[in-house]
C-alpha cells in the first residue's frame, strides 16, 4: 500500500561513459497527473542526458511556474536547479549562465509560462542566444490552474467543457524563428524516438535551442475538439525531419548518409545529422522554414523535427565579450579589483 518508486539495479544493467546508470539521471517521483505528456518528456530528458554522459553536477535545471515547470524536480536529482516565478525562468537562466558559462543549462517552461505571462522574457533570451536548451512543454492550457486556454491554444479548438477558443494562437516555433533563434525544433511527447535525439542535438548546439514539445494534458485537454490531445496530434503530425547527434568521438558510419541526409558540424566537433523526411524542406534557410511551417499549418498539420538551425549566430558570451572562466573560478582579485579600480573606471566615464 505504498506509492514509491524503488530503485532496482538489475544484473547486467548498462552504464554510460562516466559509469552512471540510467537510474542516476532520475529525479523524485512525479506528482503530475498519471498519463501527463510532461512525464514522457522527463523520461526523454533522462534518456538523452544519460546517453550524453553529462555529469549531474555540470547541469543546471531552471523553470518558472506550471505543471511543466515542476518537471525539473523529476530528473537528475544530482543537478543544480532554480524554480523561479511565473514566466521569469529566462532571466534566471541568463543570470546563471552568465555567471557560469561552463554549466549546461536546461530551462523547462510551459506554453502559459513562455507564451502568456513570460512572452517578453522568451523573446529576449532568444535574442541574446543564451547557450541553453529552452524546452516548452506545450499542452494548450494552463494545466496547473485547471485548464484555461493558453496562448498556444488554436483558434476554434474547444475546452473540456465545450467553450470555443476565439483568440488566435501564438506559434512558439514560428515566433522563435522570426525572432532570430539559432535552433528551433518541434516534437511530441509521445514520440521518444524523435524527441531524444532532438534533445541531444539541442543540448550540443552552442546557443539558445528552443524545443516546442506538444505534451498532452490528460486531465484538461485530451478530449475531442482539442488540437493538443494524444489522438489529434498523432493524426495530424507531419514529420519533416529526423535528427541524430553524433558525438565527436564516434565514427560516422556511411549508412547514416543514406537518403537525403545532411551533416551539420558543431564547434565542439560533434555532428548533427539531419535526415529529411520531407524533401521539400531546408532547415538552414529561414524563409523556407517559415513558409513550410505556414503551408502545413494552413492544412491543419503539425510539423515536427528540427525546423531551423544556424550554428553561427553569436551567443551571449561572445556578444558581451565576457571572461572565459566561470566567475566562481576567478581569483578574488580579478573578480573584485577593489575600490581603486572602480574609481578609475568611473573617472574614465566622466
Amino acid at each position, binding site marked *: *500500500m*505504498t*506509492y*514509491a*518508486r*524503488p*530503485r*532496482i*539495479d*538489475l*544484473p*547486467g544493467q548498462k552504464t554510460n561513459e562516466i559509469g552512471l546508470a540510467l537510474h542516476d539521471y532520475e529525479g523524485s517521483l512525479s506528482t503530475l*497527473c*498519471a*498519463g*501527463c*505528456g510532461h*512525464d*514522457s518528456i*522527463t*523520461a526523454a530528458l533522462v534518456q538523452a542526458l544519460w546517453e550524453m554522459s553529462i555529469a549531474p553536477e555540470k547541469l543546471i535545471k531552471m523553470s518558472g511556474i506550471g505543471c511543466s515547470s515542476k518537471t525539473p524536480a523529476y530528473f537528475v536529482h544530482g543537478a543544480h536547479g532554480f524554480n523561479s516565478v511565473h514566466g521569469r525562468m529566462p532571466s534566471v537562466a541568463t543570470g546563471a549562465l552568465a555567471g557560469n558559462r561552463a554549466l549546461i543549462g536546461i530551462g523547462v517552461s510551459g506554453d502559459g509560462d513562455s507564451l502568456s505571462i513570460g512572452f517578453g522574457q522568451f523573446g529576449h533570451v532568444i535574442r541574446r542566444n543564451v547557450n541553453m536548451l529552452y524546452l516548452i512543454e506545450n499542452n494548450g492550457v494552463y494545466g496547473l490552474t485547471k485548464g484555461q486556454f493558453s496562448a498556444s491554444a488554436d483558434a476554434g479548438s474547444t475546452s473540456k467543457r465545450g467553450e470555443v477558443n476565439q483568440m488566435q494562437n501564438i506559434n512558439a516555433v514560428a515566433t522563435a524563428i522570426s525572432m532570430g533563434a539559432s535552433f528551433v525544433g518541434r516534437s511530441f*511527447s*509521445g514520440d*521518444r524516438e524523435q524527441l531524444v535525439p532532438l534533445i541531444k542535438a539541442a543540448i550540443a548546439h552552442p546557443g539558445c535551442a528552443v524545443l516546442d514539445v506538444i505534451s*498532452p494534458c*490528460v*486531465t484538461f485537454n*485530451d478530449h475531442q475538439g482539442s488540437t493538443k490531445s*494524444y*489522438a489529434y496530434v*498523432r493524426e495530424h503530425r507531419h514529420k519533416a525531419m529526423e535528427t541524430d547527434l553524433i558525438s565527436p568521438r564516434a565514427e560516422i558510419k556511411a549508412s547514416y548518409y543514406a537518403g537525403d541526409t545532411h551533416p551539420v558540424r558543431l564547434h565542439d566537433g560533434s555532428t548533427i545529422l539531419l535526415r529529411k523526411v520531407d524533401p521539400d524542406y531546408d532547415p538552414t534557410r529561414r524563409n523556407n522554414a517559415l513558409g513550410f511551417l505556414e503551408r502545413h499549418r494552413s492544412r491543419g498539420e503539425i510539423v515536427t523535427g528540427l525546423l531551423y538551425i544556424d550554428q553561427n549566430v553569436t551567443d551571449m558570451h561572445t556578444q558581451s565579450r565576457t571572461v572565459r572562466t566561470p566567475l566562481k573560478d576567478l581569483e578574488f582579485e580579478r573578480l573584485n579589483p577593489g575600490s581603486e579600480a572602480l574609481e578609475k573606471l568611473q573617472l574614465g566615464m566622466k
Partner: protein
Amino acid sequence: MKPTDTSNPEYFHKVVDCQWGCPAHTDVPEYIRLIAQGRFDDAYMVNRESNVFPAILGRVCDRPCEPACRRGRMDEKPVAICRLKRVAADHRGDITDRLPVAPTEKNGKKIALVGAGPASLTVANDLMPLGYECTIFEAQSVAGGLMRYNIPAFRLPIEVLNEEIDYILDMGVEIHYNHRVESMKELLDQGYDAVFVGSGAPRGKELKLPGRYDTENIHIGIDWLESVAFEHIDSIGKRVLIVGVGNTAMDCCRTSLRLGATDVKVMARKPREFFKASVWELEDAEEENVEIVVNHSPKEFVVEEGKLKGMTFELMEYVIENGRILDQDVTGEVFIPCDDVVLAIGQENAFPWIERDLGIEFNPWEEPMVDEVTYEATRKGVFFGGDSAFGPKNIIWAVEHAHQAAISIHRHCHGEPLEDRLPDRMNLQTRKMGMHEWSYSNSFDPAARRKMMHVPLEVRFTELGKEVELGFDAEQTAKEVERCLNCDIQTVFTDSLCIECDACLDICPTQCLTITSNGEREDLVQRLMAPVLEHEQPLFVSHELKQTSRVMVKDENFCIHCGLCAERCPTAAWDMQKSLLEFPQAVDYVRGNESGKRPCQQRKAG
C-alpha cells in the same frame, strides 16, 4: 507476434514462478501474504490443499520453488519459501475442524494401496472424502515411508510427522502394518476396484569393488538409516567414509556424527559443481565439520583379516567446459583409513513381488511402464505413484503423482475415460482499493534473505532426534514475507483503453514494458526497453493499440509486481489482479460438484 491469450491459465501461472516450479502448484504468494497478516491457519490450509504435508515439507521439501523464485533474479537470493511454510505450520492453531472428512455412507468402491509413504497417503487423502474405502498394506510397523525411516529425526521430528499422517489415517483408512505384499497376483485376486502401488524405490545401489563382502562394516546408506531409525543400530566407528554426495550422503554423514563418529569424510568422484545434494544440505553438513573430499574415485575396500582398514581411491582430474566434463584422467592413488563405510550412491525401485504375467509390463531396466498423465500401468486398474513410478524423486513429487493417480482411480471406478482431464481454472480479481492503495503490500523491500538459526553444535549431538533448525522468529518472518514480490498479483492489460501516453513505460522501475511496432519474436526483442535475459519466460504482446497500431509488450522476467504501471495509467488500461489458479483434484470430478467446492477448501483470498 500473435497477441497473448491471457485467458489461458498457463500464461499467468508461468508468471508465478514458484507456483509453476512446485510440482503440486502450491499457491505460494497467497500463503505468504496470509502469514504476513498473521493468518497462520489459513496459510496452512492453502498449503495443505495442494501439498498435503505442510509441516513436513516446511522442513524437508526439496524446494524446486526456490531456484524458480523471481526474487532470486534480482541479483539476490530467493524468498525463503520453505521456511515460511514451516512458520505457517508451527504457528497454526487447531485446524482439525477444517480437515476433509470421510462420509459415513461409502460409495462401495474399495482401493488397495501398497506402502504407507507420502504417495499412498495422498491418494487416501484425496479419495477418503469421496466415500472410498482405502486399505493400506505397509511392510513396516509404522506409516510414513522414507519420510520416517530415512529422513533423520534431527531434520524432521517424529511428532511433526505423526500429526500430519494422522490427519489422513484418522479419516478411517484401514491400515495393515507389518504386512509386506509378497504377491501382486494375490492382491489382485482379492477383488479391489483399483490397486495403487506406492512402494517407493527401496533398493540402495551397490558398489561392487574388491573387498565389498569381506567385512561387516560396509553399509548401504538407506538400509543403514532405516536401522538407525528403528534403533537396531546405535553406534558407528570413529572414522567414517561416506561414498557419494547426494542428499542421502548428507543424512548419512550427519547421522554418523550423532552415533559417535568424530572424523567423517564424504567422498565425491567429481568436483563440487556436479554434486547432487542440495546446497543447503551441503552447507548444513559442513557446518557440522564434515569434510567433503572431491575428485576421489573409489577403487578398493582394504580389508585385512576380516577387518576394514580403509579404502583406496583414484585421484581424478577433469577437463570441464561449460559445466560439462569432456575428459578425465587418473593422476594417482591414495589410501584413506576408516572404520566404517556408508554407500550412498543412489537407489532404485524394485518389484520382486509383482509377477510378470499379470499384464503389468516392465521396461528392460525392470521399471514399470507407467502413463505419465494417468499414472496407470499397462494393466487397467493398477496405478503407480511416488518413487515407485519413475524412480526416486522426492516427497512433493510423490504428492503430485498421487493427486493425479487419485483422479484416475476415481475415473476408473466410474467407468470414465482416464485421459479426459478437467482444464485448470483461473479467476482474476482486481486488487485496487483506491488512489495509491492496493490490497497487497506492493512496495519493494530490498531486504536480504533471512538466515535460519541453528541449535549450537554441542547441543545438537546430545540427542539423535534433536531438531537442528530453530525456525524463523517473528522478526525474521516479518522481514521475509515482505521479500515476496506477489507474482500472483498480475498486471492485466486492456488494450482498448490505452491512449499510448507512455506513463507506464516510464514509471516501471525495471523497464519491463515497451510500446513498439509488432514483429517476429527475434526482431521484437531487439526493440524492448531492457534486454531479454530469460528466454523461457514468455513475452506478453497485446492486440494493436488504437492510435498507432503498435503493441504493448511486457517482458515478465523482471516484473516486481509493484503496481506502479497500474497506478500511473490514466485510463486503468493496466490493472493489478490476483490470479487464483485452481488445479483439479479428484473431488472436482465428482458429479454435481462442478462448482469446485472442496471439502478442505476454506481459503479466503487475501
